[in-house]
């Protein structure tokens, strides 16, 4: 366990000043910033919006639409690929494998850093959402929103979206560990995401690892009615992630050349 903690600490430092860490901050705050800016521009309509009983649920839905469909899957594709590719880019796999840490620790710490970055992505997004809701209150005539931000199903929904994005992380990690060119996993991931957008019009999307966050968002909307019966969606996502991770690990440890 101590070896894992030290290796994780070392891995965590590698993301410092990296494009992936900038992307996590930028991607997670993008929607809340846009929402805040648009509301400030159209400030005349704000008193009515803020007087609504369902102010926070409305803001939640508005922010999650772009997050679930666009930013979360693409953020996972980019962050996973870029973090894994740091070793290829730095020609450092050989150094990593020559350190006194086991192969399983090398594999899990890098994956752990990616997962923590996804959590960071969600935390920043939620914090950004709250701030974007509170900024306009400073304007004259805008009342405090009704209800409490914390009354939203924050923990449950974030946890479920986290589970739903895991298959993307698993698939991207598998590809990024195999390819020494960052563009390959990113390109394939992007195409797979486009495929998910196309697939959600059909029930087969339930078997496509890149579609779970989109299905989750649509599940309580008319467009997603066909997925209503699939209550096990999140578990399916978790199982896909475990399977993809096991395949990644087997391929990782059986690699003939390490770095």
């Amino acid at each position, binding site marked *: 366990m101590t070896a894992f903690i*030290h290796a994780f600490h070392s891995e965590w*430092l590698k993301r410092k000043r990296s494009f992936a860490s900038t992307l996590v901050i930028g991607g997670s705050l993008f929607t809340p910033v846009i929402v805040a800016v648009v509301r400030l521009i159209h400030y005349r309509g704000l008193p009515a919006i803020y007087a609504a009983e369902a102010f926070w649920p409305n803001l939640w839905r508005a922010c999650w639409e772009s997050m679930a469909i666009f930013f979360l899957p693409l953020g996972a594709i980019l962050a996973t690929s870029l973090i894994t590719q*740091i070793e290829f880019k730095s020609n*450092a796999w050989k150094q*990593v494998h020559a*350190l*006194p840490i086991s192969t399983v620790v090398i594999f899990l710490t890098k994956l752990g850093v990616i997962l923590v970055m996804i959590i960071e992505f969600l935390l920043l997004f939620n914090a950004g959402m709250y701030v974007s809701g509170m900024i306009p209150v400073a304007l004259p005539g805008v009342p405090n929103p009704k209800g409490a931000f914390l009354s939203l199903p924050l923990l449950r929904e974030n946890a479920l979206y986290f589970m739903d994005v895991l298959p993307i992380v698993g698939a991207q990690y598998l590809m990024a560990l195999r390819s020494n060119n960052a563009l390959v996993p990113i390109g394939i991931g992007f195409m797979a995401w486009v495929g998910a957008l196309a697939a959600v019009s059909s029930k087969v999307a339930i078997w496509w690892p890149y579609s779970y966050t989109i299905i989750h968002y649509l599940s309580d909307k008319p467009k997603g009615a066909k997925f209503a019966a699939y209550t096990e969606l999140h578990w399916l996502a978790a199982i896909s992630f475990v399977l993809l991770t096991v395949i990644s690990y087997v391929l990782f440890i059986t690699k003939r050349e390490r770095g």
Partner: protein
Amino acid sequence: MYALQTSHLHHRFANHDVLRGIDMQVPTGSIYGFLGPNGAGKTTTLRLVLGLLQTQQGEIRIFGKRFDKERIAILRNVGSLIESPSLYDHLTASENLRLMQIIHRCPTSRITEVLELVGLADAGRKRAKQFSLGMRQRLAIAGALLHRPELIILDEPTNGLDPSGIIEIRNLLMELNRRDGCTILVSSHLLSEIDRLATHVGILGKGKLLFQGTIDELRRCRQEVLSIRMSTSDNADAVRAITENGIAARIVEEEIVLPALTGERIASLNRMLMARNLDVYEIRTVRNDLETIFLNLVRE
């Protein structure tokens, strides 16, 4: 006692035998120069030794322990630099070392110490992407020394260094070996570099270990007289006289060149020339230098 020992190490890449039974023995406390022309299999051997390539056939022992059984325990005492430096360009020199310091669990103060050792004391806060090739090489060497390893494996460590940098790194390695008693395995295709640095040498050619022993043993076992060179008051007359005595002689660069001869034969030639009133200024034997020995070995 050997710090590193390989037995019958074979390796194939795409139906091509890269290594054909390498039995390498690196004595504890030595500086072992691993020599060979480009493509001889030096890097493949070092990669196998560090577990960067899966062993296909043969056994590797470091500090007497089997590498495949005790990889982590062994790597705790090994520092390495294989081929080009592995550096994270977006991090500073200190941060690059910090990543390894955390894993090795050595004191943080070692980062400053090794940066000073390799002459990068003022560059700790500079990002690696701003480093020249020589500075990158020094930083990678600093990483290999960070945890005071008992065995240091360096693949072409002076690549990219200027002459003064080469001398500094050579002196540093010799000092580490002398002061801390650490074993150093250093590969190079530069014979002159190994000649100045190493106590032991292994010469690899076409996947085979052609020679292994001390530098002095290498000189002794392969050294032989190639020719005799002579200088007289009248070289043309001397050549005529020597040829009349049945010895093939010729003039090259104002010197008489003769084939290898016994001591008695050289003495009798000297007496004969003096009898002909020719002054003999110099008679010397020309032997193989280390470079010739190396070239002869790898060409065989």
